[in-house]
């Protein structure tokens, strides 16, 4: 690589920088010495075969992982050059900053409107105190995910009655309502039908101009379509990472080549 880690950090000014991440479930180590740089306002795709630790990696970025029983992790994760693992850090602020979009849509047991308003409400966001506060936030977020025209007449209806694709866009709108800096997407389209999946993919792609997106995907074709940067994870190790173009066109590692050629998946 040529450059030292510190030189790369300075050169790229990454949004998220993971240093020496090790994760254990009980006695099983699932991530080994993971080092990552995630650039700001781009899509970084995390690819790799099933069970290689992609979701675990993603969930450690906003400290959601530590809520799982039996998990031990050690690392330094810098977000905007602040170590989020530091005990003095407010963990709720980290999770709000880097919101998770789950694999299968997980609307809250509330109305559509309350789903969007939940985040701003619990965080006591200033914007709610403005006239038209809640309604304004709800409309803006639903519009930005293209859901407004579909649900404007049933904002007080249950979120669970939406189609699965609409639910995922609602989850996206809900995440945007807390003004995050980044979205952690855990295979966000894999539970959807092809048309909804395409729609969510395009939506996320367009959001990447404003948000840092970390996108776990298990389909190489999707990674090729969306990624600005790629991280290839294999058996808990980062095999290779870099800009999408060089990663796909001239992979350096033999394992990467084999994976891209479909030798295993």
């Amino acid at each position, binding site marked *: 690589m040529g450059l030292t880690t510190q030189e790369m950090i300075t050169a790229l000014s990454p949004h998220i920088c993971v240093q020496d991440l090790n994760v254990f479930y009980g006695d099983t180590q699932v991530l080994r010495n993971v080092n990552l740089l995630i650039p700001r306002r781009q899509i970084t795709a995390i690819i790799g075969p099933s069970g290689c630790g992609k979701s675990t990696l993603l969930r450690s970025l*906003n400290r*959601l992982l530590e*809520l799982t*029983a039996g998990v031990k992790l050690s690392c330094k994760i810098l977000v905007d050059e602040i170590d989020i693992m530091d005990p003095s850090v407010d963990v*709720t*602020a980290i*999770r*709000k900053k880097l*919101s*998770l979009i*789950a694999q*299968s849509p*997980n*609307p*809250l*047991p*509330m*109305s559509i409107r309350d789903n969007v308003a*939940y*985040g701003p409400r*619990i*965080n006591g966001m200033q914007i709610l105190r403005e006239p038209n506060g809640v309604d304004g936030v709800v409309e803006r977020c639903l519009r930005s995910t293209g859901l407004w025209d579909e649900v404007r007449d049933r904002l007080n209806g*249950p*979120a*669970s009655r939406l189609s699965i694709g609409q639910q995922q866009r609602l*989850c996206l709108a*809900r*995440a945007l*309502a*807390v003004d995050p800096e980044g979205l952690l997407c855990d295979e966000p389209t894999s539970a959807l039908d092809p048309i909804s999946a395409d729609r969510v993919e395009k939506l996320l792609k367009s959001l990447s101009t404003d948000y840092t997106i970390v996108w776990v995907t298990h389909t190489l074709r999707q990674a090729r379509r969306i990624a600005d940067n790629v991280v290839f994870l294999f058996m808990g190790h980062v095999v290779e990472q870099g800009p999408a173009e060089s990663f796909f066109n001239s992979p350096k590692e033999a394992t990467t080549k084999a994976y891209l050629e479909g030798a295993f998946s």
Partner: protein
Amino acid sequence: MNGRILEEQLFNALMLSATFVVVGSLLVVVGVIIIKGAPALSLTMITETSSGGYLLGGAGGILNAIIGSLYLIAGSIGIASLIGLPVAIYLNEYAGTKLTHFARLSLDVLYGIPSIVYGAFAFTLMIVLGARESLLWGIITVAMLVLPIVIRGIDEVIQTVPSKLRDASFSLGATQLETGFKVVTRQVIPGIVTTVLLALGRGIGDAASVLLTVGYSDIIPTSLNNPVATLPLAIFFQLGSPYPHAQQRAYASAIILLGLVVMFSVAARFSTARFSKFVIR
């Protein structure tokens, strides 16, 4: 004929007849109560307090016991829910595995303790404290009796909440407290209603726990410190009387108690449907 098909039909018939036995016995119980109690049932029974005789109510109705039971159950279910919901949430959202296991085991044991034991325990406390039989002590005793039902019932339904709901809440910057009370609780409201109904049925129908703690009175209490009558006690005392007239009134009281429980069930059914609207399946 094919042996497997025969087997299928045989077991179908067995299960059907078992179901009939259960439903049938229920109908027999209700039928006997109605046949024996109906002659004594009148509007006076539910609009007037007893008069004309100690305990038995030689005349008048059992309004004192109806109101007494309602006060008693409202107080004890209120207390049990206020304590029970936070405990159930604590066990699921905060407590470590060891504490949770120990608490569940303890609660299951408490669940199985006969109600007379709760009554005896409360009675001992009353003697120590120099307290007299009253509505307050009845409420405390029945609250103890139904608390394990409330906690374990809510605990069981909270365990069915999918972790993806918690992920969603935490990912928006919620604390564990907010997640527990604003998301998890909302998701399990129908289960909470069912649990409270179950506890209510047990609490309102129990005579043994309040036998030693509420006293008995033919007037409607105006303070927590007054003694109070309850429907199960009214049934118990009237049924124990040698006079057929009083025994008949016991069955009429049983009809009223049954009616109350049915009313609560129906109300709970309707409200559950309302609360289920937002639940994620």
